[in-house]
């Protein structure tokens, strides 16, 4: 999946790195299920707008809605640059 752009978001905590990423393609079920190998995947297909979230071993959190072209990503405070590269690399493998 190609990342078209990402936008930094803020929350209550200084130093947090939260980004909203926009993709060229929507999050369909195969792509969502493919996230499982990054870490623990929760997929709530029965929600009014199905939601997924993933927590990876290296501190990456991803969440989004099925059928949309966006997701929200929280990068860890440590090894942030490396985790960002890892995220982009993994997304590029999803087709």
């Amino acid at each position, binding site marked *: 999946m190609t990342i078209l752009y990402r936008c930094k978001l803020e929350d*209550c905590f200084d130093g947090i790195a939260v980004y909203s990423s926009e993709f060229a393609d929507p999050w369909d079920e195969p792509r969502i299920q493919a996230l499982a190998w990054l870490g623990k995947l929760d997929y709530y297909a029965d929600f*009014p707008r199905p*939601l997924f979230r993933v927590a990876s071993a290296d501190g990456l959190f991803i*969440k989004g809605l099925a059928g949309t072209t966006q997701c929200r990503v929280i990068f860890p405070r440590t090894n942030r640059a490396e985790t960002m590269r890892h995220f982009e690399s993994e997304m590029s493998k999803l087709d």
Partner: protein
Amino acid sequence: MGFVQTAPRIYLNNSASAWPPAPGVIAAVASALEHLPVQPGRGESSGADVVAECRQRLANLLGARSPERVAFTPSATHALNLAILGLGLKRGDHVITSVTEHNSVLRPLARLADGIGIRVTVVGLDEHGDLDAGAFGLALQDSPRLVVLNHASNVTGRVNAVSALFHKAKAAAAVTLLDASQSLGHWPVNAPELGADMVSFTGHKGLRGPVGTGGLYVAEHVELEQVMVGGTGVRSDLRLHPSEMPIRLEAGTSNVPALAGLNAALLWRETDGPAFLEQENRLALDLREGLRAIGGVRLFDDVPGATRLGLVSFRVDGWEVEDTGYALDQSYGIACRTGLHCAPLLHAAIGSAPTGTVRFSPSGATTEEEIAHALEAVRRLAA
């Protein structure tokens, strides 16, 4: 005239900013924008001076002897800065405040503590979740110049019993400042009865007026230094900014359209406010009881019999606070607020540190169906 609601979503974030505004607000703002701009107090308008009307209504609400004691500001934060920075605190001066405060109190105090060396005592909560009167009494022995207390918590809705504390503080010669940002419009705020020398407030929460409105009540015996000076539109021949209230604290062009909207909100409140609040409190109670009955949901400050406003803070097992808000918002179309709610010290006291809470804050415009939908959404998250 009824409420104008256009959003196809459930709005449970009224503690941040009330929506929809009170009936009449939108029309009043639009009317002010459609007509030629006026300078309040100069008799330029052929119609009524809505700014003066608004000031009078607020004075009535706050128990002020005269409307001139109410200065308008763009927000409660602005008002609190005028009050705290305007007291002329000096190195070593002692200020008492509490863990329930918003950053609009904590940050001006922190700046003065770091910048000029004031001393700040932060009073915690007792075992019942009330402000710790014992600790407050001890702090009073250290000759405070200022006591700043939150009337109602924006995290828990708890209404603090400030009256007794303020009267003790005044007996100790301290100036008392009440942050009524959450309470005004929801709860009686009579400054003299509460022992508050100053009251800061906003117009866009309990009063259901427009954002960009707020103010500061200042009792006759308190004289604040001017933090901001400049254009007033009147008495331009003076070299210095006029010293009388309220213009003393009102530098810059007045936000007349927003104040016209706030005036309309206050007018609506005089007739329809009580029934609206009754509905709001009833729905908030339904929401609290409904959440309490869901396994895996933890309520904060859920003390039986506590006096509180109509909001509820909670968490859902297995869900980070921020994720809960995301799921409710994105999957269920429910707008709420998550995190620290700009009150960072309170969370250690109520057990919600470090990530805070999810907060639902309905209003009298919320429907029973919306409350049921919100409870069902939380139930499914908790399942």
